[in-house]
């Protein structure tokens, strides 16, 4: 058992090989496109994340 598997198990998460293939899932495609469009229109304010990190340090 590799370290990642052991770590996941400690955290109560089981690693599995039979997760469904969601590559072409219509809901995922729709939701992803909506998110991309939204973030294109309202870009992520990287400075707010940086600011929060800075506040943590001081």
């Amino acid at each position, binding site marked *: 058992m590799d370290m990642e598997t052991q770590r996941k198990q400690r955290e109560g998460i089981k690693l599995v090989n039979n*997760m469904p293939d969601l590559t072409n899932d219509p*809901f995922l495609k729709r939701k*992803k496109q909506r*998110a*991309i469009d939204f973030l294109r229109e309202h870009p992520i304010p990287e400075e707010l994340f940086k600011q929060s990190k800075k506040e943590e340090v001081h």
Partner: protein
Amino acid sequence: MNSEKYPIEVGRDFLTYSFSSRGPNGIIKKVIVFEPMDSEGIYYNLAFGDWDEKNQVINDKAISNNNDTLKILNTVAFTILDFLENNRDAKLYVEGSTRSRTRLYQINILSFWSEISVKINVLGYYKGSWETFRQLTNYDAFLAAIK
């Protein structure tokens, strides 16, 4: 995040998680996907819904009424934290498929705020701009990243 949650499974891609809701309407499989939105693997979109076994798709409109909303939200919150802790440069975009579901995410963030705020930076989108998450504001969407 020590509240009651369902046992969780994760696929080998470490991006797809699932668990089974159990209640008066039976066992309902839920799927959570952290979908990359860029080739660098920095920006991710959170998707969450019921697994439709027959059609092999996620159903985001299903209302399972299994009397376990809090346990489900606890489980989703746990997977978000697990994902962010394992993808420390990731920025996660979170928006419900309806306003009421976005509101549920907000309730969940508030429920765990004392724990979340120590580990995660949360931004909310409100009235046309992003801002640092404030507890009494109803946001349209969220961004989360590990501190």
